[in-house]
Protein backbone atom coordinates (compact mmCIF):
# COMPACT_ATOMS: atom_id res chain seq x y z
CA UNK A 1 0.00 0.00 0.00
CA UNK A 2 1.48 3.31 -1.03
CA UNK A 3 1.95 5.72 1.82
CA UNK A 4 -1.17 7.80 2.21
CA UNK A 5 -2.22 10.18 4.95
CA UNK A 6 -4.01 8.97 8.02
CA UNK A 7 -7.05 11.01 7.08
CA UNK A 8 -7.20 9.51 3.60
CA UNK A 9 -6.84 5.98 4.95
CA UNK A 10 -9.62 6.63 7.44
CA UNK A 11 -11.88 7.96 4.67
CA UNK A 12 -11.17 4.90 2.53
CA UNK A 13 -11.93 2.65 5.47
CA UNK A 14 -15.25 4.41 5.99
CA UNK A 15 -16.07 3.98 2.32
CA UNK A 16 -15.24 0.27 2.41
CA UNK A 17 -17.43 -0.27 5.48
CA UNK A 18 -20.26 1.59 3.79
CA UNK A 19 -19.95 -0.53 0.64
CA UNK A 20 -19.75 -3.76 2.61
CA UNK A 21 -22.83 -2.87 4.62
CA UNK A 22 -25.02 -1.65 1.81
CA UNK A 23 -23.88 -3.24 -1.43
CA UNK A 24 -24.72 -6.49 -3.13
CA UNK A 25 -21.05 -7.16 -3.58
CA UNK A 26 -20.08 -10.45 -5.17
CA UNK A 27 -18.25 -12.70 -2.70
CA UNK A 28 -14.84 -12.33 -4.32
CA UNK A 29 -15.10 -8.55 -4.21
CA UNK A 30 -16.44 -8.58 -0.66
CA UNK A 31 -13.48 -10.67 0.45
CA UNK A 32 -11.07 -8.36 -1.31
CA UNK A 33 -12.72 -5.30 0.23
CA UNK A 34 -12.62 -6.92 3.65
CA UNK A 35 -8.92 -7.64 3.29
CA UNK A 36 -8.24 -4.06 2.18
CA UNK A 37 -10.37 -2.76 5.05
CA UNK A 38 -8.43 -4.73 7.63
CA UNK A 39 -5.20 -3.47 6.08
CA UNK A 40 -6.46 0.11 6.46
CA UNK A 41 -7.36 -0.53 10.09
CA UNK A 42 -3.83 -1.78 10.75
CA UNK A 43 -2.33 1.09 8.84
CA UNK A 44 -4.32 3.73 10.79
CA UNK A 45 -3.55 2.09 14.12
CA UNK A 46 0.13 1.97 13.24
CA UNK A 47 0.19 5.66 12.46
CA UNK A 48 -1.56 6.43 15.75
CA UNK A 49 0.95 4.43 17.73
CA UNK A 50 4.10 4.96 15.73
CA UNK A 51 4.49 8.68 16.43
CA UNK A 52 7.29 9.03 18.87
CA UNK A 53 6.43 11.23 21.81
CA UNK A 54 8.77 14.14 21.67
CA UNK A 55 8.66 17.71 22.85
CA UNK A 56 11.55 19.76 21.55
CA UNK A 57 12.66 23.33 21.75
CA UNK A 58 13.52 25.06 18.50
CA UNK A 59 15.69 28.17 18.58
CA UNK A 60 17.72 30.22 16.16
CA UNK A 61 20.78 32.01 17.53
CA UNK A 62 21.87 35.48 16.59
CA UNK A 63 24.38 34.01 14.14
CA UNK A 64 21.49 32.26 12.37
CA UNK A 65 22.29 28.70 13.47
CA UNK A 66 19.23 26.65 14.32
CA UNK A 67 19.28 24.30 17.31
CA UNK A 68 16.81 21.74 18.48
CA UNK A 69 16.89 20.38 22.03
CA UNK A 70 14.53 18.54 24.35
CA UNK A 71 12.14 20.98 25.99
Amino acid at each position, binding site marked *: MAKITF*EKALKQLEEIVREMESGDLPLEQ*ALKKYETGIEKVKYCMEILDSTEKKITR*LTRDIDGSVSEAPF
Partner: protein
Amino acid sequence: MPDHRTTQIYSVSRLTRKIKTLLEDRFPFVWISGEISNCAAPASGHFYFSLKDDQAVISGVMFKNQKRNLKFTLENGLKIMGLARLSLYEPRGNYQLIFEHMEPEGAGSLQKAFEQLKKKLGDEGLFDAAHKQPIPFFPCKISVITSGTGAAVRDIINIAERRFPNCRLEIVPVSVQGDTAQEEIVCAIELVNERRQADVIILARGGGSIEDLAAFNSEKVARSIFASHIPIITGIGHETDFTIADFAADVRAPTPSAAAELAVPEKKQLVRQITDMQVSLSAAMIQKLTYFHQKLDDLHSRLKSPVQIMANFKQTLASHCLRMQHAMHHCMAIKENRVTKAAATLAALNPASVLTRGYSVTRTLPDKKIIFDAKMVAYQDQIETILSQGRILTRVEKTIHGKDHI
Protein backbone atom coordinates in the same frame (compact mmCIF):
# COMPACT_ATOMS: atom_id res chain seq x y z
CA MET B 1 -13.11 101.41 46.24
CA PRO B 2 -16.70 101.80 45.01
CA ASP B 3 -19.28 102.96 47.41
CA HIS B 4 -21.41 100.03 48.50
CA ARG B 5 -24.42 102.26 48.66
CA THR B 6 -24.28 103.11 44.96
CA THR B 7 -23.67 99.52 43.74
CA GLN B 8 -25.83 96.44 43.84
CA ILE B 9 -25.47 94.26 46.90
CA TYR B 10 -25.73 90.45 46.29
CA SER B 11 -26.86 88.00 48.82
CA VAL B 12 -24.56 84.95 49.06
CA SER B 13 -27.09 82.66 47.55
CA ARG B 14 -27.92 85.07 44.74
CA LEU B 15 -24.28 85.47 43.81
CA THR B 16 -23.74 81.77 44.05
CA ARG B 17 -26.68 81.18 41.78
CA LYS B 18 -25.30 83.73 39.30
CA ILE B 19 -21.96 81.97 39.29
CA LYS B 20 -23.66 78.63 38.93
CA THR B 21 -25.63 79.81 35.91
CA LEU B 22 -22.54 81.35 34.40
CA LEU B 23 -20.46 78.19 34.83
CA GLU B 24 -23.04 75.70 33.83
CA ASP B 25 -24.10 77.65 30.74
CA ARG B 26 -20.55 78.24 29.65
CA PHE B 27 -19.41 74.61 30.14
CA PRO B 28 -22.46 72.38 29.59
CA PHE B 29 -20.24 69.43 28.57
CA VAL B 30 -16.49 69.25 28.41
CA TRP B 31 -13.96 66.61 27.46
CA ILE B 32 -11.24 66.63 30.05
CA SER B 33 -8.17 64.59 30.78
CA GLY B 34 -6.25 64.28 34.01
CA GLU B 35 -5.06 62.00 36.75
CA ILE B 36 -7.28 60.62 39.47
CA SER B 37 -6.33 61.19 43.10
CA ASN B 38 -8.02 61.35 46.48
CA CYS B 39 -10.59 58.88 45.41
CA ALA B 40 -13.36 57.84 47.74
CA ALA B 41 -16.05 55.24 47.19
CA PRO B 42 -18.70 55.56 49.91
CA ALA B 43 -21.51 53.07 50.44
CA SER B 44 -23.78 55.13 48.17
CA GLY B 45 -21.95 53.62 45.22
CA HIS B 46 -20.98 57.02 43.81
CA PHE B 47 -17.33 57.68 43.20
CA TYR B 48 -15.75 60.91 44.41
CA PHE B 49 -12.26 61.97 43.44
CA SER B 50 -9.97 64.80 42.47
CA LEU B 51 -8.78 65.18 38.93
CA LYS B 52 -5.41 66.85 38.64
CA ASP B 53 -2.56 67.65 36.37
CA ASP B 54 0.78 69.06 37.38
CA GLN B 55 -0.60 72.53 38.05
CA ALA B 56 -4.24 72.32 39.08
CA VAL B 57 -6.88 70.18 40.66
CA ILE B 58 -10.64 69.99 40.32
CA SER B 59 -13.08 67.77 42.19
CA GLY B 60 -15.12 65.25 40.32
CA VAL B 61 -17.80 62.69 40.83
CA MET B 62 -19.16 59.77 38.87
CA PHE B 63 -22.55 58.62 40.00
CA LYS B 64 -23.43 55.01 40.50
CA ASN B 65 -25.45 54.68 37.29
CA GLN B 66 -22.65 55.92 35.04
CA LYS B 67 -19.96 54.10 37.00
CA ARG B 68 -21.70 50.81 36.30
CA ASN B 69 -20.85 51.08 32.60
CA LEU B 70 -17.09 51.40 33.12
CA LYS B 71 -15.01 48.49 31.89
CA PHE B 72 -12.06 49.30 34.14
CA THR B 73 -11.45 50.10 37.79
CA LEU B 74 -11.03 53.66 38.92
CA GLU B 75 -8.01 54.12 41.16
CA ASN B 76 -5.54 56.72 42.30
CA GLY B 77 -2.87 57.57 39.75
CA LEU B 78 -4.96 56.46 36.78
CA LYS B 79 -4.90 58.86 33.89
CA ILE B 80 -8.28 59.20 32.38
CA MET B 81 -10.14 61.11 29.71
CA GLY B 82 -13.80 61.74 30.18
CA LEU B 83 -16.91 63.64 29.27
CA ALA B 84 -18.32 65.75 32.14
CA ARG B 85 -20.55 68.68 32.86
CA LEU B 86 -19.47 71.33 35.30
CA SER B 87 -21.76 71.80 38.26
CA LEU B 88 -21.78 74.07 41.26
CA TYR B 89 -23.09 72.76 44.55
CA GLU B 90 -24.65 75.76 46.21
CA PRO B 91 -24.79 74.67 49.89
CA ARG B 92 -21.02 74.22 49.88
CA GLY B 93 -20.08 76.79 47.33
CA ASN B 94 -17.82 74.45 45.45
CA TYR B 95 -17.92 73.23 41.89
CA GLN B 96 -17.21 69.80 40.57
CA LEU B 97 -17.19 67.79 37.37
CA ILE B 98 -19.99 65.28 37.04
CA PHE B 99 -18.67 62.57 34.71
CA GLU B 100 -20.94 60.84 32.24
CA HIS B 101 -18.27 58.75 30.55
CA MET B 102 -14.66 57.93 31.24
CA GLU B 103 -11.92 55.81 29.70
CA PRO B 104 -8.30 55.21 30.59
CA GLU B 105 -6.15 57.59 28.63
CA GLY B 106 -4.24 55.81 25.93
CA ALA B 107 -6.82 53.05 25.62
CA GLY B 108 -8.81 55.19 23.28
CA SER B 109 -5.89 55.78 20.98
CA LEU B 110 -4.83 52.12 21.06
CA GLN B 111 -8.36 51.08 20.28
CA LYS B 112 -8.45 53.55 17.43
CA ALA B 113 -5.15 52.27 16.06
CA PHE B 114 -6.50 48.72 16.35
CA GLU B 115 -9.63 49.59 14.39
CA GLN B 116 -7.64 51.42 11.73
CA LEU B 117 -5.20 48.56 11.25
CA LYS B 118 -8.01 46.03 11.23
CA LYS B 119 -9.80 48.00 8.52
CA LYS B 120 -6.64 48.47 6.46
CA LEU B 121 -5.62 44.80 6.53
CA GLY B 122 -9.23 43.73 6.09
CA ASP B 123 -9.52 45.89 2.98
CA GLU B 124 -6.34 44.28 1.67
CA GLY B 125 -7.99 40.89 2.03
CA LEU B 126 -5.72 39.50 4.76
CA PHE B 127 -8.70 38.21 6.70
CA ASP B 128 -10.61 36.77 3.74
CA ALA B 129 -12.04 33.31 4.26
CA ALA B 130 -10.67 32.36 0.83
CA HIS B 131 -7.11 32.58 2.19
CA LYS B 132 -7.76 30.43 5.25
CA GLN B 133 -5.89 27.14 5.12
CA PRO B 134 -7.54 24.01 6.47
CA ILE B 135 -6.15 22.63 9.71
CA PRO B 136 -4.75 19.13 9.10
CA PHE B 137 -6.91 16.39 10.56
CA PHE B 138 -3.94 14.50 11.90
CA PRO B 139 -0.81 16.65 12.29
CA CYS B 140 2.47 14.76 12.58
CA LYS B 141 4.24 17.68 14.19
CA ILE B 142 2.92 20.83 15.81
CA SER B 143 5.00 23.96 16.33
CA VAL B 144 4.03 26.08 19.30
CA ILE B 145 5.15 29.69 19.15
CA THR B 146 4.71 31.23 22.59
CA SER B 147 6.57 32.24 25.69
CA GLY B 148 8.80 29.39 26.84
CA THR B 149 7.96 30.04 30.45
CA GLY B 150 4.34 31.14 30.67
CA ALA B 151 1.27 29.19 31.70
CA ALA B 152 0.20 29.06 28.06
CA VAL B 153 2.94 26.66 26.99
CA ARG B 154 2.22 24.39 29.98
CA ASP B 155 -1.50 24.40 29.20
CA ILE B 156 -0.83 23.51 25.58
CA ILE B 157 1.56 20.67 26.46
CA ASN B 158 -0.91 19.30 29.03
CA ILE B 159 -3.86 19.37 26.68
CA ALA B 160 -1.86 17.92 23.80
CA GLU B 161 -0.50 15.06 25.91
CA ARG B 162 -3.90 14.31 27.34
CA ARG B 163 -5.51 14.15 23.92
CA PHE B 164 -2.70 12.36 22.13
CA PRO B 165 -0.16 10.89 24.54
CA ASN B 166 2.50 10.33 21.89
CA CYS B 167 2.13 13.66 20.13
CA ARG B 168 5.03 15.46 18.55
CA LEU B 169 5.38 19.06 19.76
CA GLU B 170 7.99 21.64 18.97
CA ILE B 171 8.16 24.70 21.19
CA VAL B 172 9.56 27.83 19.62
CA PRO B 173 10.06 30.19 22.55
CA VAL B 174 9.54 33.91 21.91
CA SER B 175 8.90 37.03 23.95
CA VAL B 176 5.19 37.67 23.77
CA GLN B 177 5.38 41.24 25.02
CA GLY B 178 7.90 44.01 25.03
CA ASP B 179 9.91 45.72 22.33
CA THR B 180 11.30 42.59 20.71
CA ALA B 181 8.10 40.53 20.76
CA GLN B 182 6.97 41.47 17.22
CA GLU B 183 10.31 40.63 15.66
CA GLU B 184 10.68 37.38 17.58
CA ILE B 185 7.21 36.17 16.65
CA VAL B 186 7.78 37.00 12.98
CA CYS B 187 11.18 35.24 13.02
CA ALA B 188 9.68 32.18 14.69
CA ILE B 189 6.92 31.90 12.07
CA GLU B 190 9.52 32.24 9.31
CA LEU B 191 11.82 29.68 10.96
CA VAL B 192 9.07 27.07 11.22
CA ASN B 193 8.10 27.71 7.61
CA GLU B 194 11.69 27.36 6.44
CA ARG B 195 12.08 23.98 8.14
CA ARG B 196 8.85 22.64 6.62
CA GLN B 197 8.48 20.03 9.33
CA ALA B 198 5.41 21.12 11.21
CA ASP B 199 1.91 20.59 9.83
CA VAL B 200 0.35 23.29 11.96
CA ILE B 201 1.45 26.22 14.11
CA ILE B 202 -0.10 27.31 17.37
CA LEU B 203 0.55 30.98 18.15
CA ALA B 204 -0.39 31.55 21.76
CA ARG B 205 -0.25 33.93 24.67
CA GLY B 206 -1.98 34.10 28.03
CA GLY B 207 -4.33 36.91 28.95
CA GLY B 208 -3.19 40.50 29.36
CA SER B 209 -4.13 44.13 28.92
CA ILE B 210 -4.44 45.64 25.49
CA GLU B 211 -0.91 47.00 25.91
CA ASP B 212 0.37 43.50 26.73
CA LEU B 213 -1.20 42.14 23.57
CA ALA B 214 0.38 44.86 21.41
CA ALA B 215 2.65 42.49 19.47
CA PHE B 216 -0.38 40.42 18.44
CA ASN B 217 -2.06 43.59 17.21
CA SER B 218 0.89 44.57 15.05
CA GLU B 219 0.87 44.74 11.29
CA LYS B 220 4.13 42.79 11.01
CA VAL B 221 2.84 39.78 12.90
CA ALA B 222 -0.45 39.87 10.96
CA ARG B 223 1.39 39.86 7.61
CA SER B 224 3.71 37.12 8.79
CA ILE B 225 0.72 34.97 9.77
CA PHE B 226 -0.87 35.65 6.40
CA ALA B 227 2.35 34.69 4.59
CA SER B 228 2.79 31.40 6.47
CA HIS B 229 2.40 28.29 4.30
CA ILE B 230 1.71 26.28 7.40
CA PRO B 231 -1.77 26.84 8.84
CA ILE B 232 -1.79 28.86 12.06
CA ILE B 233 -4.18 28.55 14.98
CA THR B 234 -4.13 31.49 17.39
CA GLY B 235 -4.97 31.18 21.05
CA ILE B 236 -4.36 34.62 22.45
CA GLY B 237 -5.55 35.99 25.79
CA HIS B 238 -8.99 35.29 27.09
CA GLU B 239 -12.18 34.42 25.30
CA THR B 240 -13.18 38.08 24.93
CA ASP B 241 -9.85 39.27 23.54
CA PHE B 242 -9.73 39.65 19.79
CA THR B 243 -6.39 40.60 18.27
CA ILE B 244 -5.37 41.42 14.71
CA ALA B 245 -3.42 38.15 14.75
CA ASP B 246 -6.69 36.31 15.45
CA PHE B 247 -8.27 37.82 12.36
CA ALA B 248 -5.29 36.93 10.18
CA ALA B 249 -4.99 33.38 11.53
CA ASP B 250 -6.46 30.39 9.72
CA VAL B 251 -8.40 29.50 12.85
CA ARG B 252 -8.88 31.52 16.01
CA ALA B 253 -9.19 29.67 19.29
CA PRO B 254 -10.41 31.59 22.33
CA THR B 255 -7.52 30.48 24.57
CA PRO B 256 -4.16 28.66 24.32
CA SER B 257 -5.79 25.49 25.69
CA ALA B 258 -8.55 25.69 23.10
CA ALA B 259 -5.92 26.11 20.39
CA ALA B 260 -4.27 22.88 21.53
CA GLU B 261 -7.63 21.12 21.45
CA LEU B 262 -8.21 22.27 17.89
CA ALA B 263 -4.75 21.22 16.74
CA VAL B 264 -4.41 17.86 18.45
CA PRO B 265 -6.93 15.12 17.66
CA GLU B 266 -8.15 12.96 20.50
CA LYS B 267 -6.40 9.64 20.19
CA LYS B 268 -8.95 7.70 22.23
CA GLN B 269 -11.72 8.87 19.97
CA LEU B 270 -9.76 8.01 16.82
CA VAL B 271 -8.96 4.54 18.14
CA ARG B 272 -12.62 4.03 18.99
CA GLN B 273 -13.63 5.18 15.54
CA ILE B 274 -11.24 2.75 13.85
CA THR B 275 -12.19 -0.10 16.16
CA ASP B 276 -15.88 0.52 15.50
CA MET B 277 -15.23 0.37 11.79
CA GLN B 278 -13.26 -2.84 12.16
CA VAL B 279 -16.21 -4.36 14.00
CA SER B 280 -18.60 -3.18 11.31
CA LEU B 281 -16.32 -4.56 8.65
CA SER B 282 -16.18 -8.00 10.27
CA ALA B 283 -19.91 -8.00 10.92
CA ALA B 284 -20.58 -7.15 7.29
CA MET B 285 -18.23 -9.90 6.16
CA ILE B 286 -19.81 -12.48 8.46
CA GLN B 287 -23.24 -11.47 7.26
CA LYS B 288 -22.10 -11.79 3.69
CA LEU B 289 -20.61 -15.23 4.31
CA THR B 290 -23.72 -16.40 6.16
CA TYR B 291 -25.82 -15.23 3.27
CA PHE B 292 -23.74 -17.10 0.74
CA HIS B 293 -23.73 -20.22 2.92
CA GLN B 294 -27.48 -20.19 3.16
CA LYS B 295 -27.80 -19.59 -0.53
CA LEU B 296 -25.45 -22.47 -1.19
CA ASP B 297 -27.37 -24.77 1.15
CA ASP B 298 -30.59 -23.81 -0.54
CA LEU B 299 -29.22 -24.46 -4.01
CA HIS B 300 -27.64 -27.70 -2.86
CA SER B 301 -30.91 -28.97 -1.53
CA ARG B 302 -32.57 -28.10 -4.78
CA LEU B 303 -29.87 -29.80 -6.89
CA LYS B 304 -31.22 -33.42 -7.67
CA SER B 305 -28.96 -36.43 -8.25
CA PRO B 306 -29.62 -38.66 -11.31
CA VAL B 307 -30.60 -41.52 -8.96
CA GLN B 308 -33.34 -39.37 -7.56
CA ILE B 309 -34.46 -38.41 -11.04
CA MET B 310 -34.55 -42.12 -12.06
CA ALA B 311 -36.47 -43.04 -8.94
CA ASN B 312 -38.98 -40.37 -9.76
CA PHE B 313 -39.37 -41.65 -13.28
CA LYS B 314 -39.78 -45.23 -12.00
CA GLN B 315 -42.44 -44.16 -9.65
CA THR B 316 -44.28 -42.29 -12.36
CA LEU B 317 -43.96 -45.27 -14.61
CA ALA B 318 -45.31 -47.68 -11.99
CA SER B 319 -48.20 -45.39 -11.31
CA HIS B 320 -49.06 -45.16 -15.02
CA CYS B 321 -48.78 -48.93 -15.31
CA LEU B 322 -51.16 -49.51 -12.47
CA ARG B 323 -53.68 -47.07 -13.85
CA MET B 324 -53.44 -48.75 -17.21
CA GLN B 325 -54.16 -52.18 -15.69
CA HIS B 326 -57.14 -50.82 -13.82
CA ALA B 327 -58.46 -49.24 -16.96
CA MET B 328 -58.00 -52.50 -18.86
CA HIS B 329 -59.85 -54.52 -16.22
CA HIS B 330 -62.67 -52.05 -16.20
CA CYS B 331 -62.92 -52.12 -19.93
CA MET B 332 -62.97 -55.95 -19.98
CA ALA B 333 -65.64 -56.11 -17.36
CA ILE B 334 -67.90 -53.83 -19.37
CA LYS B 335 -67.39 -55.89 -22.53
CA GLU B 336 -68.00 -59.19 -20.69
CA ASN B 337 -71.20 -57.86 -19.35
CA ARG B 338 -72.35 -56.91 -22.80
CA VAL B 339 -71.48 -60.36 -24.15
CA THR B 340 -73.48 -62.07 -21.38
CA LYS B 341 -76.46 -59.87 -22.10
CA ALA B 342 -76.20 -60.50 -25.82
CA ALA B 343 -75.98 -64.27 -25.23
CA ALA B 344 -79.18 -64.15 -23.19
CA THR B 345 -80.94 -62.18 -25.88
CA LEU B 346 -79.59 -64.52 -28.46
CA ALA B 347 -80.82 -67.52 -26.54
CA ALA B 348 -84.26 -66.02 -26.38
CA LEU B 349 -84.26 -65.51 -30.11
CA ASN B 350 -83.05 -69.08 -30.97
CA PRO B 351 -85.51 -70.51 -33.64
CA ALA B 352 -85.16 -73.97 -32.03
CA SER B 353 -87.04 -72.74 -29.00
CA VAL B 354 -89.84 -71.43 -31.25
CA LEU B 355 -89.97 -74.79 -33.00
CA THR B 356 -90.42 -76.57 -29.68
CA ARG B 357 -93.59 -74.54 -29.18
CA GLY B 358 -95.01 -76.18 -32.40
CA TYR B 359 -93.99 -73.57 -34.96
CA SER B 360 -92.11 -74.74 -38.05
CA VAL B 361 -89.96 -73.26 -40.77
CA THR B 362 -90.58 -74.08 -44.40
CA ARG B 363 -87.89 -73.68 -47.04
CA THR B 364 -87.67 -74.01 -50.78
CA LEU B 365 -85.60 -76.79 -52.29
CA PRO B 366 -82.93 -76.89 -53.28
CA ASP B 367 -82.34 -73.13 -52.56
CA LYS B 368 -83.31 -73.49 -48.91
CA LYS B 369 -84.95 -70.05 -48.86
CA ILE B 370 -87.33 -69.49 -45.98
CA ILE B 371 -90.82 -69.15 -47.37
CA PHE B 372 -92.71 -66.08 -46.05
CA ASP B 373 -95.22 -65.76 -48.85
CA ALA B 374 -97.26 -68.36 -50.81
CA LYS B 375 -96.18 -66.60 -54.01
CA MET B 376 -92.63 -67.84 -53.47
CA VAL B 377 -93.64 -71.38 -54.51
CA ALA B 378 -95.67 -72.92 -57.28
CA TYR B 379 -97.64 -76.09 -57.85
CA GLN B 380 -95.61 -79.31 -57.42
CA ASP B 381 -92.48 -77.40 -56.07
CA GLN B 382 -90.58 -79.51 -53.62
CA ILE B 383 -90.29 -77.85 -50.17
CA GLU B 384 -89.09 -78.94 -46.78
CA THR B 385 -90.54 -78.17 -43.37
CA ILE B 386 -88.21 -78.06 -40.40
CA LEU B 387 -89.86 -79.16 -37.19
CA SER B 388 -88.61 -79.26 -33.64
CA GLN B 389 -87.80 -82.88 -34.20
CA GLY B 390 -86.96 -83.90 -37.83
CA ARG B 391 -88.01 -82.61 -41.29
CA ILE B 392 -90.79 -83.30 -43.70
CA LEU B 393 -90.25 -83.26 -47.50
CA THR B 394 -93.46 -82.35 -49.36
CA ARG B 395 -94.85 -81.11 -52.72
CA VAL B 396 -97.09 -78.05 -53.12
CA GLU B 397 -100.66 -79.07 -53.96
CA LYS B 398 -102.13 -75.60 -54.02
CA THR B 399 -101.12 -72.01 -53.22
CA ILE B 400 -103.55 -69.61 -51.63
CA HIS B 401 -102.57 -65.93 -51.76
CA GLY B 402 -103.60 -63.24 -49.33
CA LYS B 403 -103.44 -62.67 -45.73
CA ASP B 404 -105.91 -65.19 -44.52
CA HIS B 405 -103.55 -67.89 -43.41
CA ILE B 406 -105.28 -69.68 -40.61
